[in-house]
């Protein structure tokens, strides 16, 4: 009888499990159905806009606030009557901060959802990989965060309202030379964005007579100790940290503290735009140089964005001064563009080049003929855990 009893025991567990699954499915359907009912306020056919951003992986810390900003702006637009009377609908895909996933996300958005405009990618790798896909389908790709110089003039279908890193690397190289630094230790994460910063920096710095000792690390590196030990023994005048994402930067800073290494620091706007990180590693940062593209804190549109984000999501907007405003503006630029030329990727891309002195949360936006935002990074110095504009 023993095996029999056991058998009925497992079948009971199985029944219970199936019941739980059933309840979850039915419950989920009910909740989902209700949700759908509530959202069907504007009865007109929505305008679908594709969105690509990193929602998982190391890029996710940027993707999450970006998605919130997009949804916030879309909600505002729809409450105010939508885009020429039609509601705006975002179809969000996870492009994971890498080219492979961005390509499949773009293909899905173009072929299945039939979008004309894609908002994204966020990471440069995403935009570089997705541009040919978008261009082939005559879909406009509009990035509010990709800053690799390789994207300048890449395609008539690509444009961005975030400036290229060419200016970032150049500004920092000139500042380093002005400080009298001859030798810089450089740690670069292996991504298109970070490589873009390195190329721009190294071109200008070596032109002005400096030398660079460079190490590269893959994005998923956790243990930097030996790479850092190696750079430490190079006895350089300064250490330039060039990560793609904040987790990488924080791991490096933490391990620099463990190694008791306190060099003069320089870093890209990933670190410069993260006030919490600057405050946490205050001792390490004093006098560090960074170049950042920032919104004017007195711009009313910018302060309104910050306040509304806080009300809606209950937390402060991360990367508030750099990506937040460009992301917010991007949704409104799409609205303006569609109202001007209709929901057509080709016309929208042509229209984008005519944007001039458009007032938004990130200040005045002007897009050049090469698809880049005109205007760039300003040099900043870290004092007492805060990045200040260098005088």
């Amino acid at each position: 009888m023993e095996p029999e009893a056991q058998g009925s025991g497992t079948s009971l567990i199985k029944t219970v499990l199936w019941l739980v699954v059933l309840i979850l499915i039915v419950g989920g359907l009910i909740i989902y159905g209700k949700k759908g009912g509530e959202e069907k306020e504007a009865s007109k056919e929505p305008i679908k806009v594709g969105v690509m951003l990193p929602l998982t992986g190391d890029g996710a810390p940027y993707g999450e606030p970006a998605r919130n900003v997009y949804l916030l702006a879309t909600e505002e637009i729809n409450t105010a009557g939508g885009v020429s009377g039609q509601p705006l609908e975002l179809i969000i895909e996870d492009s994971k901060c890498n080219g492979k996933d961005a390509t499949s996300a773009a293909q899905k958005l173009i072929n299945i959802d039939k979008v004309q405009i894609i908002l994204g990618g966020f990471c440069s790798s995403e935009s570089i990989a997705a541009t040919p896909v978008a261009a082939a389908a005559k879909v406009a790709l509009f990035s509010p965060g990709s800053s690799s110089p390789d994207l300048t003039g890449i395609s008539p279908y690509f444009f961005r309202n975030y400036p290229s890193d060419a200016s970032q690397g150049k500004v920092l190289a000139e500042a380093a030379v002005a400080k009298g630094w001859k030798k810089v230790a450089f740690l670069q994460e292996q991504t298109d964005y970070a490589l873009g910063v390195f190329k721009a920096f190294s071109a200008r710095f070596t032109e002005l007579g400096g030398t660079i000792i460079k190490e590269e690390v893959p994005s998923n590196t956790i243990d930097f100790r030996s790479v850092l030990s190696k750079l430490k023994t190079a006895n350089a005048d300064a250490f330039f940290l060039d990560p793609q994402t904040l987790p990488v930067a924080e791991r490096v800073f933490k391990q620099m503290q463990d190694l008791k290494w306190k060099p003069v620091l320089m870093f890209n706007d990933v670190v410069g735009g993260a006030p919490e990180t600057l405050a946490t590693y205050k001792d390490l940062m004093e006098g560090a140089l960074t170049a950042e593209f920032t919104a004017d804190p007195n711009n009313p549109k910018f302060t309104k964005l910050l306040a509304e984000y806080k009300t809606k999501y209950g937390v402060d907007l991360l990367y508030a001064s750099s990506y937040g405003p460009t992301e917010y503006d991007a949704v409104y630029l799409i609205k303006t563009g569609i109202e001007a030329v209709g929901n057509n990727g080709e016309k929208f891309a042509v229209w984008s080049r005519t944007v001039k002195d458009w007032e938004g949360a990130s200040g005045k936006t002007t897009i050049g003929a090469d698809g880049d935002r005109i205007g760039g990074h300003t040099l900043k110095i870290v004092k007492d855990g805060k990045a200040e504009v260098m005088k």
Partner: protein
Amino acid sequence: MDIVPQLIANSLIAGSIYAILTLGFNLTYSTAKFIDIGFGVETAIGGYSVFYLCKTLGLPLYFGIFLGLFCSGLVSFLAYRFIYKPLRARKASGTVLLIASLGVLTALQALVAILFTSQFQTLSGLIQANRVFELLGGTFTAVQLSIFCTVLILSVLLAFLLKGTLFGKAITAISDDEEVAKIVGINTERVMGEVFFISGMIGGLAGILIGFDTGIEPIMGLSWLLAAVVAAIVGGIGNLYGGLVGAYLLAFAENFGIWKISGEWKMAIAFGLLIIFLVWRPRGLFPR
């Protein structure tokens, strides 16, 4: 400045974390005989439990660590009870179990990301100033020292558990031959459940220590697991103490390897080592 002492220190730190993970990994591998990728996620479960209990709720650290270990053990046990056990009862192959465990890893790390966001977190704020020691030109922190000590304590504890207790004898019997163990009256299902619980706790312990040392992320599991698997294969898969040697060998190879070549090759060194072993010594340094 001489770099060698620091490289030795770095290798010992990295090796110690690999060693803890390899112990946990080998424990389930030697009994259940499949590569449990889901083991990787226990690091995140342990780390985030402590993060939530101590940083968000403000519970005392010892209590948080204790509960964190319990949580990761429990998750590992539940994964066994509701996923691996039914599959094994149906005589699923190792590949099926491996894929199922990959599912466990993916689902649970997504759950952690939903609950705690994907932001990078550290536990280091929970302890007062992490002292930095210097020895012969190499630096290491108090946390890193305790990671090293944890390996020693854990190895001794496991040795006692396996050699000195009836439970340990049951584990040894199952890893020799599960069928025979069942015939002689060992409740293999129960022992297996307990083994998964213990290995989950070891994974959680590693995650907590990683949280204090470098920091935690929901997706941390896979990369740590890969290191543990490489270390286990190098040391002789399923052999607990071979795994320890494998872990330190891997760490030394990685850290000294990038002394002369660029740091971007670190992963390549690890997997190069794996390939060398798979081709020339597939059963590892100390085959079981």
